[in-house]
């Protein structure tokens, strides 16, 4: 039996429609999109510009506001470091950089890196539902002149959505720039960056059924947001991101964005149903499971499931080979430590250690959701039936 893939928050398979575009682009596009003096290069450049329009359309942005990168990690780094450094270089006294305890590692790391350059990182707590409280942000903004605030639209472990309209208004009022990591939210929930008070936004291709190796940063034009590039070189992407653009990957990324835009409502309804079917099937077999932050507004495709008190997630995972889920984000999954995201929401170490992240996808059927629930319940029962191992004698 094929494995049930419930880890779309780590990475999504390429949509077959995207794959078709990728293959066609690979066959047709031979040029370097920056070789604009000959036909082959111009064709590649046209492909890149079409993708740029498709990405912009998904986000409600202008094409000229889209800078292509290698992925969301690079976009997040470019946004946070680039904006803070640009302000500092131009004599701005704004030294505070604010983010949230539940952000993805690469955002927390970017902010931490800035501490070594004379910036003052501030990590905001979240409430038990994983949300940033507006007055907590307002206080942090009032304490010191702030350069950048980075808040993800949707959390990668719990799917919890932040109220960007409210939070963004506070950031704008304080004269700071709001960056938002849309790696999980883009294509899953409607976003209109021209109405949201967002200055910078990161998006990843492989989290929305596009190929790995492509991403983008939205950089607002009005009012214009200025960045210092992470690195220089050939000066591509208006000097913000040097390096040859991978035309075929971007063509796939663009197509994935277009599909996400047209299928968003359908995908959302489908994922909500998959989650409901899963939980309804699991409930009677394994009473006592809880969805973390259930009452919060969340993405339909990601939920964090807390097992009953006698079960540890890692042990259940170990005997559940047919169902692919994770304990937290993929990047940190090698550690197998309980999730810092859940602990930030006030869950105890033990409660976090009972939690699994499940993220079905566009192509997950309700039948698969039932099989996944059965598989999880079976694994849980198996763990319960296994007598606890005697601790190893000390060496």
């Amino acid at each position, binding site marked *: 039996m094929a494995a049930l893939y419930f880890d779309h928050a780590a990475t999504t398979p390429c949509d077959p429609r995207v794959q078709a575009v990728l293959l066609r682009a690979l066959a047709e596009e031979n040029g*370097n999109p920056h070789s604009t003096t*000959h036909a082959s290069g111009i064709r590649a450049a046209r492909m890149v510009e079409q993708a740029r329009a498709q990405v912009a359309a998904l986000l409600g942005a202008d094409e000229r506001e889209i800078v292509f990168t290698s992925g969301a990690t690079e976009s997040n780094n470019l946004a946070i470091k680039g904006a803070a450094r640009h302000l500092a270089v131009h004599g701005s006294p704004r030294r505070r950089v604010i983010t949230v305890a539940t952000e993805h590692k690469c955002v927390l790391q970017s902010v931490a890196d800035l501490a070594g350059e004379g910036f003052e990182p501030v990590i905001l707590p979240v409430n038990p539902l994983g949300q940033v409280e507006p007055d907590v942000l307002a206080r942090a903004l009032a304490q010191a002149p702030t350069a950048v605030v980075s808040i993800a639209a949707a959390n990668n472990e719990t799917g919890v959505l932040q109220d960007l309209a409210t939070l963004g208004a506070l950031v704008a009022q304080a004269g700071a720039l709001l960056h938002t990591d849309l790696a999980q939210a883009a294509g899953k929930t409607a976003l209109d960056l021209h109405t949201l008070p967002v200055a910078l936004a990161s998006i*990843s291709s492989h989290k929305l059924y596009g190929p790995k190796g492509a991403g983008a940063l939205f950089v607002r034009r009005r009012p214009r947001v200025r960045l210092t590039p*992470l690195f220089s*070189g050939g000066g591509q992407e208006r000097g913000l991101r040097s*390096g*040859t653009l991978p035309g075929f990957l971007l063509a796939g990324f663009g197509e994935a964005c277009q599909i996400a835009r047209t299928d968003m409502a359908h995908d959302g309804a489908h994922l909500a149903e998959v989650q409901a079917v899963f939980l309804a099937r699991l409930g009677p077999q394994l009473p006592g499971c809880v969805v973390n932050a259930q009452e919060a507004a969340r993405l339909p495709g990601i939920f964090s499931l807390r097992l009953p008190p006698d079960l540890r997630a890692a042990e259940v995972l170990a005997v559940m080979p047919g169902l692919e889920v994770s304990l937290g984000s993929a990047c*940190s999954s*090698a550690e197998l430590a309980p999730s810092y995201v859940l602990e930030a929401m006030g869950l105890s170490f033990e409660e976090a250690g009972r939690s699994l992240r499940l993220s079905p996808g566009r192509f997950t059927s309700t039948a698969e959701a039932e099989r996944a629930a059965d598989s999880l319940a079976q694994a849980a029962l198996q763990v319960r039936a296994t007598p606890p191992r005697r601790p190893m004698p000390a060496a």
Partner: protein
Amino acid sequence: MNDKTDDRVRDFSKPVYLDANATEPLRPLARVAMLEAADLTGNPSSVHHAGRQARAMLEEARNTVARRLGVAPLNCVFTSGGTEANVLAMHGLGQGRRFLVGRTEHDAVRKGVPDGADRAWLEVDSHGQVCLDLLDAALSAPGAPAFVCLMLANNETGVLHPIAEVARLCRQHGAHLHVDAVQAAGRMAVNVEELGADSLACSGHKMGGPKGAGALLLRGPAPRALAPVFEGGGQEQGRRGGTQPLPAIAGLAAALCDALDNPQDLLPLRNRLEQAAQAVGAVVCGAGVPRLCNTVSLALPGRRAQGQLMRLDLDGFCVSAGSACSSGKVAFSHVLDAMGLGELAGQAIRVSLPWNVREADVERFVQSYARMAAGAGLALAQ
């Protein structure tokens, strides 16, 4: 040089692609490897089965690239491409060092020197090779230990620097030698250990792999730490953050193997092209020193490069005036300028033969070039 292809089915409406140094056509074996990798769903950092499968393929590609280029697998860091690989070396390993950068380096290196770092240029001779006595003098100058950036093969002229000699001097002076091998890797034997480079950058799409992946290779048996340009979830041993683009990386590894296992002898074709161009008045820039077998820089005295490009484009040939990054902007070559070629720096085009070039393509080019040199009216490709 794929003359087995049936000439009768060739589509002459398609331009002849002679701009390999901007990007090589995708090799079929690279395409196969990419598609295989694309069929794996997982994120190489996930611990479940799909993730482990992806991880196994990633590590296989890493082992291959590392072995083929002469480093330990742990010292092969995958990046998004050549620019990032070069920049990662300069940012990550150059801290506290003074930079000595070749005049003819690619923009990724010339402009990639970290802000605020001490930087001096290394001049080249009229052939485009670094002047070793000037390098020696620069290395002997007092100050912090040096970080030397010299490319293996130049992207515009194909001229090779005497890297073994350079490495010897760098070792003597405790300098770090970083080699941009973006154009060389896959087109000639490149071995980090044998070259004596401390770090070396390469790019997938310049060896017939897909765009979107490159690698930084570091010398030495023990994993070499470096300060990342951007971090994320600790991928690449904390040296480069972000989910690895597995299909692009698998394609890079396959392209490198194909390039090394099935080398094309492009030298006779390049020589044919060169001699024909010289016969109609062209100057070959960097002639007389070792060069890449696929690259030739042809200057036509008194004729602006931009006009030549437009003319050749209309005739159905994709060539360029310099590096692709800047090709949309200017047609004045900093490389040829550094070689002291004066006005010729604005009058040269670069012809770079791709791995799958055919003799007939070169013959057509030679004819078209001769017509252009003679100043004849437009002649469209048949």
